[in-house]
């Protein structure tokens, strides 16, 4: 069976896997963004806390993904929970680091101006600092998403959702008729998804970054 014949006969399964892969990455990215920006907002003002946040999220990234998922299985069981936890943790670093850099990079004169015209702390954060730090944060999210696309494939190891299942099935039945097709379809699916997500981020950037600060 050729690759295209394989895709033709299994398209229902492939589409489900692709959708689940995309959905898992998207949801974990939303979580990682919220958490990462929150961590950055809490720590950027202090040299010490900010560095701690960057270093610890960087440390998480050094743990091999297979090992992390393996370690999570005895704690949270199989399926969705270990996938979500692992992906969210991996997605944190680029978001936290870029958000801290972005927030620290806001011109001190503008912070002074914001305070001086009577903005409260929250208003200053949401109306001045975060909008100005948004371009680097979005870049962080973009980098993290690309990374999660690949890491999400490993989630199949813990019976997680996504295109990883296709790849693992292929590897498990190495030598059989469809094993190569399975691995190939999983891998190509992930690559296509990554490109689509990237295109989406370009669009989001256009829509959410103020014309006044767009490069």
């Amino acid at each position, binding site marked *: 069976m050729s690759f295209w014949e394989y895709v033709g006969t299994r398209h229902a399964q492939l589409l489900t896997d692709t959708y689940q892969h995309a959905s898992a990455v998207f949801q974990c990215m939303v979580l990682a963004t919220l958490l990462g920006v929150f961590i950055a907002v809490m720590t950027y003002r202090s040299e010490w806390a900010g560095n701690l946040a960057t270093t610890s999220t960087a440390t998480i990234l050094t743990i091999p993904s297979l090992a992390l998922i393996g370690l999570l299985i005895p704690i949270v069981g199989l399926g969705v929970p270990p996938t979500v936890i692992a992906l969210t943790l991996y997605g944190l670093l680029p978001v936290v680091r870029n958000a801290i850099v972005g927030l620290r990079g806001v011109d001190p004169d503008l912070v002074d101006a914001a305070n001086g015209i*009577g903005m409260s702390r929250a208003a200053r954060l949401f109306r001045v600092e975060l909008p100005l730090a948004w371009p680097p944060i979005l870049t962080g999210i973009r980098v993290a998403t690309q990374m999660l696309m690949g890491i999400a494939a490993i989630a199949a190891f813990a019976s997680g959702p996504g295109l990883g299942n296709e790849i693992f099935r292929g590897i498990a039945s190495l030598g059989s008729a469809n094993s190569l097709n399975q691995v190939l379809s999983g891998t190509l699916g992930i690559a296509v998804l990554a490109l689509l997500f990237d295109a989406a981020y370009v669009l989001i950037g256009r829509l959410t970054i103020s014309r006044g600060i767009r490069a």
Partner: protein
Amino acid sequence: MPETPETTSTSGASIRLENLTKLYPGNQAPAVDNVNMEIKAGETVILVGPSGCGKSTTLKMINRLIEPSSGRIRIGDEDVTDMDPVKLRRTIGYAIQASGLFPHMTVAQNIALVPKMLGWRATRVKNRVEEMLDLVGLDPAEFHGRYPRQLSGGQQQRVGVARALAADPPVLLMDEPFGAVDPITRDHLQDELIRLQHELHKTICFVTHDFDEAIKIGDRIAVLRERSHIAQFDTPEAILTNPSDDFVSGFVGAGAALKRLNLTRVRDVAVVDFPTASIDDPLESIFERLRSGPHNELLLLDHNRRPYKWLRRGDLARAKGSLARAGTLVADTVTRDATLRDALEAVLTDNAGRVAVTGRRGEYLGMVDMETLMNNVQELLEADRLEAIEQQHRLHEQRARQTQLAQEGLDDASGTEGGRGSRA
């Protein structure tokens, strides 16, 4: 364009700083040491001094961007030292160097910030933004939707002032607002500010290190030395003619008498009369006056009574029945609002050492020449000197009285002027 501003403007409130001190933790000496200052309602006071003298810190303590270590701040009749700083700052205009505009917001959004935070209705905010742009000389239709980076430095600074004034605060703090623009633009902005203040009568506290800027804008100038100690707090005239010590005179710099010329306008000095003739007069009478009159020169005015030509007796020979070729065209005139310095400049460049003074529509009013200028300047300097000496006497007496009262244990709260400034 709104024809008339619908919102009436609040005029200034007085500011009183009492024993204001800022001591940063870990420092031996305070950054600002025991400043006492009273700024009257509607007055423009300039804090001027070398870098690092604490002038900016003093300013920022007024809206409590920097919390004072001790001392009180009073605005109007209210002690604001313990007030919620966020609420306080919404009632104080704040303009800083390089405008401080938020680059991700449009001009209109920037200006609307404070009114929105104060909960104004949307239509009122919108009208106010237009009114403010108009006030600072920017066309609302054109600039409304622009982003700060699409504006020149001078335009940004205007928008910065518009934002500071948007919620109609009685007090305006300006921290070297024109420090980052080129000299020509700075000059325009200073003129604008003077015009604005003439209309609005806010209480302005303005920080700069440029003494010429201070003289130009200030009603009174506080020359500060290190730790914000007040070396002299007086009118520009008094500081120029009677600096209290070497530090102040060093800061005033060379050419105090020349700088003094910037403070007086042509309308304040006596202009001299000069024989004139209208271009509509019959030629015969003009000739007759030139030939027989005591003057050997006439100023010829055009149909609108604007200075047109200088006519000398010698030019008559060339006239030959028409004035078209006779005389020299008037090259330069000064208006009544020009400073004496401008007038001096014009007199010096004129080959006969005189310049015509014109009114609002360019009509002839009189003449200034070297002699009038000299006399006037000497009189002015003399008057300044006398006044400064008198002022010093008064201060000495006041201080003596205060110490006496303090010694008797009576805390005298005299001089609490407060209140609202008058409206124009």
